[in-house]
C-alpha cells in the first residue's frame, strides 16, 4: 500500500513560498508540475536558488538531478540573483538588422556590462532576449518590464545611467 508522504516544509517562513506551494497543489503535486513550479518560484523571488530547487523537487517527488537539469535547460529560468534593475535587449532577426548589436555595444562601453552579467555595483543586469514579438518596434528593449520601442542607443544608455 502506498504510504502518503508528508509535504516537505518551505525552506523558511517567507510568505512568497505560498505562491509556489499553491501552484504545485493546483496541479496535484505531480511531477509534471515541475516547470509550472519553477515559473512560480521565479515570479515570486526573481530567481531560483538551491533552496527553491530542493523544495520543489521534494514536493513533487522529482530527484534533484532532474530538477537541476530542467531548470538549466530552459533559458527563461535563472539561478543567479538579478541586479536591482534589468534591461533586456532583443536580438531577434528584425531587431538584429535594425541595429540591436550597436545598442548592446553602446551599453557595454558606457556601463561596462556584457549580456548575462550584472554591473559591479549590482544595479543593472543586462540580458539578451530571443525576440519578444515586438518586431514592428525594432530595435526593442525591455527596461524593468517596460517595452521600449525603436530604441536609440544613446537615449537608452542615458536612461540606464539614470536608474
Amino acid at each position: 500500500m502506498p504510504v502518503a508522504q508528508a509535504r516537505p516544509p518551505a525552506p523558511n517562513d517567507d510568505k512568497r513560498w505560498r505562491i509556489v506551494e499553491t501552484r504545485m497543489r493546483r496541479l496535484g503535486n505531480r511531477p509534471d508540475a515541475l516547470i509550472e513550479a519553477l515559473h512560480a518560484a521565479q515570479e515570486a523571488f526573481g530567481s531560483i536558488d538551491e533552496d527553491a530547487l530542493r523544495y520543489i523537487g521534494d514536493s513533487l517527488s522529482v530527484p534533484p538531478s532532474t530538477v537541476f537539469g530542467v531548470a538549466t535547460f530552459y533559458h527563461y529560468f535563472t539561478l543567479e540573483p538579478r541586479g536591482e534593475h534589468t534591461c533586456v535587449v532583443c536580438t531577434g532577426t528584425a531587431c538584429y538588422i535594425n541595429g540591436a548589436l550597436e545598442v548592446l555595444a553602446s551599453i557595454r562601453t558606457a556601463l561596462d556590462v556584457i549580456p548575462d552579467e550584472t554591473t559591479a555595483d549590482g544595479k543593472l543586469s543586462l540580458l539578451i532576449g530571443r525576440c519578444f514579438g515586438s518586431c514592428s518596434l525594432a530595435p526593442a528593449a525591455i527596461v524593468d518590464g517596460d517595452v521600449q520601442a525603436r530604441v536609440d542607443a544613446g537615449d537608452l544608455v542615458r536612461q540606464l545611467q539614470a536608474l
Partner: protein
Amino acid sequence: MTELPAATSRLEPSTGRPVEGLAPAGPIRASAYVCEAVSCLSMASHDILTGLVEVAGTTMTDVAVKRVGCLGLCAAGPLVRIPETGELFSHVRPDALQPIVEALGAVTPAAVRVPESVFFDRQVRIATEHSGRIDPESVEDYVEADGYAALRRVLTTMTPAEVRDEITKSGLRGRGGAGYPTGLKWNTVAKATGSGKYVICNADEGDPGAFMDRTILESDPHQVLEGMAIAAYAVGASYGYVYCRGEYPLVVSRTRKAIRDATQADCLGTTIMDTEFTFEVDVRLGAGAYVCGEETALIASIEGGRGTPTARPPYPAVSGLWGQPTLINNVETFANVPPIIRKGGDWFASIGTAKSKGTKVFALAGRVANTGLVEVPMGTTLREIVFDIGGGIVDGHVFKAVQTGGPAGGCIPAEFLDMGVDYESLMEAGSFMGSGGMIVMDETSCMVNVARFFMDFMREESCGKCVPCRVGTTQLWMMLDAIASGQAQVGDIERMERLATMVQRTSLCGLGQGAPNPVFSTLRYFRDEYLAHIVDRVCPAGVCTMEATVLA
C-alpha cells in the same frame, strides 16, 4: 490617415485595470476602437483608452469606446479606429486626443466611409477576422460576432466524421510551417486508440521575427479555443492544453481569462451546451526553448521535463502526451477552423492556390515601411506583400531579400518578387513557409552575417541530444564566423557545404535538419558575397568588420 506626433512608450499590465471601455445606455452613434495588442500597448494605448473614455463619457451620450485586438498596422501605432466611417488615427498621443473627439462628434448615420488604404484593402481576413473588431477579453463580444456558433452547429448537427470530412474538404494545411494536411492529421488521431486523447495548441512561437500567434491569441483567444473544442469533438478528445511562450505574459493572461469565461458561458468544460461533450483546457508555459516548437519536445515539456525531441515514429497522433493519441496544431490552424465550419469547406477551398488553400497570416518586419500583421490569400506575390501592402523599403533603400521560415528558412532574392507565395513555391525557392515571419532586408544587410546570425541562434538552441546538430551547428557557426571576419580560406565554402548536408541528413529533429537552410539559401543566391569575404577580404554591404572575433 491622420498623422499625429510620436508617443512615448509605456507598457500597462493587462490585468487590474480600472477602465475597460465605455458603453452608452442608448443606441451607439459613433465608436472609437483603441488597439490594445502588445505593440500599441507598449506605446501607451491604454492611456489613450482611459483618456477617450473620460472625454467622451463627459461630453457625449451616444459614443462607445472599446478595447480591441491588433489592427495590423503596428508601425503606425498606437492606433484608434472609428468603424462607422473607417477613419484610422495613427501615432496617437494620450495628450492629443482632440482630433479623435472631433471626428467622433462629426459622425452621422449618413457619414461617407473613408476608402480603405491599400494596406487593408488587399487583405482577406479569416484567421484574424475579429482582430481589431472585438474586445479580446469579452466572451459576449465574441459570441455577438458569431462566436461559438460553429461549435454549437458541430455539437448539435454533425457527427465527428462529418466534421473531419469538412476540414479535409477545405484543404486546410498546418500553419506551423510544414504544411501537413490538417484533415489527414485529425483522421489519424481519430482512428488511434487510447484511454484518453489530447488536443494541444502549439503557441510556442519561437521563430525570431514572427508574431502571428501572439497577435491572434492577444486579439481573439476565443476563436482559437473554439477551434480546439471542435477538433477535440472531431477526434474524440476531452482534454486540451495551450502551450504558450513564457515570454508572452499578455497572451497567457488573456488566454487564461478566455478559458474561464468560456467555461462559465458553457462553451468549454463539462457537458457543453447541454450535450454529452466535455472539453477542458489548461495553459502550460514554455520557458524559452526554441526546440519546444517541435512536437515531441513540446510534449516532453508539458510532461514537466527537458524539452528534448524523440525519434518519430511513433508520431504523437498515435502515441503522444502520456503515451496517448495527441493532436497538435498551431494557433493559426485552430483559428481557421470555426470559419471553415461556419462557411463550409468548399468556400475555404475556393481561396488560395491549387495545393495551398485559404489565407496565410504574415508578420511583416525588418526594413519595410508598414511593419505589422497581414493576412493574404495563398498565392499573393511577394511584390504585393512587400511593396503594396508593406509600403516598400524604408528610407529610399533597395530591396535585397526577404527572409521567411524563421532560422530554418531561407532568404529569397529580388528575382522571385513576382512569385506567388504558397507552401510549394517557397520550397522551390529554397526557403519554406514556416510559421509566417517575413523579414525584409535591404542592401545594408550582409547575407554572410545573416547566415551567421541564424547559425548562432541554432547552436544556442540545439538541445544537445544528437551529435550532428549539437556539434554541427557549432562548427558551421565557426566557419561562418571565419568567413565574416576575413579569416577563411579558398575551399572553405565547399567544406561548409559538405558539413551542412551531413547535418541536414542526419539530425534527429526538424531543428537540426533545418539549421543548414540559411547557409544553403544564401549560398545559392549570394555566393558572390561569400567569395568577396574570402577572396577579396571585403564585406560588400559594409557590415562585417573583417576582424577576428574576440570571444568574451
